């Protein structure tokens, strides 16, 4: 074959391209490489959680220490009040309601700036003796320290409250009068400004705040910025909500602070002995706490990203060298094989055609009459040539489908194609003396399929039926439409398919054992092609068969809308 011609043939026949893409494979390879790094990413993320847990732990340790210290300081202050009230309750000035009582209390107040007031209320609650003269004559009957002192038998602590802009807590101790009946209640109120002083003394870390808040959401103390906050009631603040929801007397939680800054809080009850005790909290700014962790995370993330890039580059180049190049080589082999089959099949067609034509001329008597023996021999040769041509056609089609050649679906008429196929096989049907019946329905059966391949499919099914039905037997072909499909059925009374071989009947190159032993011709490609073509056209194919009784092969395709003008079908050569 001249080089020029061979080259042209390759170009013309070379339909290549696998059913899967190399790019997709490469992507999977890279994903696999990236997957190797997944544990490192998981470690990085879990590290973030670890840092967060560590920050919480630090808050738990350090924050709780601070708030406990505050609570302890308060406890000491309160503890000092009890003996003081005890002493006062026995003073003659108090018990006997002497006019000198208030002067005494005034001096006491001056010496102890931590007190808001010190004094005595009568059994009716009216204050008759006080260090702060503004308290004289005022009724303390509704003060919690007063009611609790009377309802109990001894020292009582009142509620923490903010009255007239000053946050304080009162304490009361009942005492007997000279006649043994209730003389009144001596009291002292502690100025909670001292809490702010405590906060200053415990040297809070930067960006942290100390807050004392009661259960109603009233802020009793806050450092820094006490002037702005103390006395305000913020029951809806997340901090207050979180404290209300707390089940334990002390702990740690995360919430926005009063100014909205996200904080980690440690809290404890200011006075654990009192059920309604306010809470003392210390809140650390989360951003400040986690700044180190954030920096570490970003550094690690950049490091890991760089590592990922390197791994992907290695996977790319290593994958090329170790895998992709090998696959390319294999694909080349596949492509060359496909081209070889394509070229060989095409080149077979020319000599087959020339032999067929010569036979045709001999049989037609164009070149003179033949003896019956000569005629018989030529007829035999002709049948063999047709088998050979069918094989070449099948190989070409299988090759085309295997190498991903696209079918050319178009509107076509299954009934018309079936008629044409039956017409082309009429000679063989007649020669075998088969009883052939066909029904094509009353109307066209419009489907979307490649007419060339679809006709070959019908030819394959019908040729099998004709070939494997004994002389004088019956073969039928039917095309019908219904339920949105066009269905073609070929029934024969032929050899049938052995039960055990039924699952393999559509395999490439498979020929049933009973057929192989009787007919040498046949490529084992016809049904394989039929299935491929039908399924690629969106249809279904199937069969039922009993050995020595016959087979029914069918396929169905979705009906399409009929073409606007009948006979507008584009005929292909």
């Amino acid at each position, binding site marked *: 074959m001249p080089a020029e011609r061979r080259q*042209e043939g390759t170009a*013309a026949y070379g339909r290549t391209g696998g059913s899967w893409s190399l790019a997709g494979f490469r992507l999977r390879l890279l994903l696999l490489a990236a997957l190797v790094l997944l544990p490192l990413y998981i470690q990085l993320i879990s590290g973030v959680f670890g840092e967060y847990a560590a920050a919480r732990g630090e808050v738990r340790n350090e924050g709780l220490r601070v708030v406990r210290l505050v609570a302890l300081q308060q406890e000491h202050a309160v503890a000092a009040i009890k003996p003081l009230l005890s002493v006062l309750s026995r003073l003659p000035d108090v018990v006997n309601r002497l006019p000198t009582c208030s002067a005494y209390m005034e001096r006491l107040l001056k010496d102890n700036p931590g007190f808001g007031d010190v004094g005595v209320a009568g059994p009716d609650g009216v204050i008759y003796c006080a260090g702060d003269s503004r308290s004289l004559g005022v009724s303390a009957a509704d003060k919690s320290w007063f009611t609790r002192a009377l309802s109990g038998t001894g020292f009582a602590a009142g509620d923490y409250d903010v009255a007239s802009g000053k946050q304080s807590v009162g304490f009361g101790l009942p005492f007997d009068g000279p006649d043994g009946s209730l003389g009144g209640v001596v009291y002292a109120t502690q100025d909670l400004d001292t809490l702010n002083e405590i906060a200053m003394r415990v040297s809070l870390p930067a960006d942290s705040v100390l807050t004392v808040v009661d259960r109603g959401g009233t802020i009793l103390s806050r450092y820094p910025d006490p002037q702005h906050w103390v006395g305000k009631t913020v029951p809806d603040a997340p901090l207050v909500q979180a404290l209300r929801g707390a089940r334990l007397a002390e702990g740690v939680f995360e919430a926005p602070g009063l100014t909205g800054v996200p904080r980690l809080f440690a809290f404890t009850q200011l006075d654990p002995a009192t059920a309604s005790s306010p809470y003392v909290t210390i809140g650390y700014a989360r951003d400040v706490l986690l700044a180190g962790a954030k920096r570490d995370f970003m550094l690690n993330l950049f490091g890991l990203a760089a590592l990922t890039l390197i791994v992907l580059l290695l996977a790319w180049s290593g994958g090329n060298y170790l895998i992709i190049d090998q696959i390319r080589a294999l694909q080349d082999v596949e492509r060359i094989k496909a081209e070889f089959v394509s070229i060989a099949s095409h080149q077979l067609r*020319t000599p087959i055609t020339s032999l067929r034509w010569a036979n*045709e001329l001999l049989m037609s008597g164009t070149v003179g009459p033949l003896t019956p023996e000569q005629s018989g021999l030529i007829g035999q040769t002709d049948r063999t040539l047709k088998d050979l041509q069918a094989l070449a056609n099948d190989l070409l089609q299988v090759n085309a489908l295997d190498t991903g050649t696209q079918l050319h679906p178009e509107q076509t008429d299954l009934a018309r194609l079936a008629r044409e196929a039956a017409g082309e096989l009429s000679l063989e049907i007649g020669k075998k003396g088969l009883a052939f019946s066909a029904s094509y329905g009353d109307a066209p059966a419009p489907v979307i399929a490649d007419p060339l391949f679809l006709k070959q499919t019908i030819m394959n099914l019908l040729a099998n039926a004709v070939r494997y039905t004994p002389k004088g037997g019956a073969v039928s072909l039917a095309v019908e439409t219904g339920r949105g499909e066009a269905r073609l059925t070929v029934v024969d009374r032929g050899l049938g398919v052995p039960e055990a071989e039924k699952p393999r009947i559509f395999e490439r190159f498979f020929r049933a054992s009973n057929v192989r032993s009787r007919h040498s011709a046949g490529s084992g490609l016809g049904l394989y092609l039929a299935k491929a073509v039908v399924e690629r056209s969106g249809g279904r194919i199937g069969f039922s068969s009993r050995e020595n009784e016959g087979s029914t092969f069918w396929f169905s395709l979705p009906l399409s809308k009929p073409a606007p003008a009948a006979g507008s079908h584009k005929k292909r050569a």
Partner: protein
Amino acid sequence: MNKILLVEDNESLALSLGIALKAAGFEALVAEDGEKALKTAVEERPALILLDLFLPVMDGFKVLEHLKKDGRTSGIPVAVFSVLSQDSDKVEAKRLGAKAYFVKSEMSVQQVVDEVRKLLA
């Protein structure tokens, strides 16, 4: 008698088709390669050219191009006559001016003769 120029390098095919055409009343001229085809076309002015695509020296498409460019042969109808049945080849042949496209492996010799008659009718 109508002259038919058969451009075909396969001797056996050319022989069979030549006999069939002769029997049908045509005069069959055979050219085995592209250059001879062009020469014969100019000299003999056939009524129809049956042109194979796979040809030595010059392939069928080039022959067709030359035939249609040459004023002496551009009026002669050409039927491409190949074993190739790909759409792209058919489109290319039509573009270059072929009147018909036959896939010879799918036809009997009688069908070819019938098509020739139709083209000359």
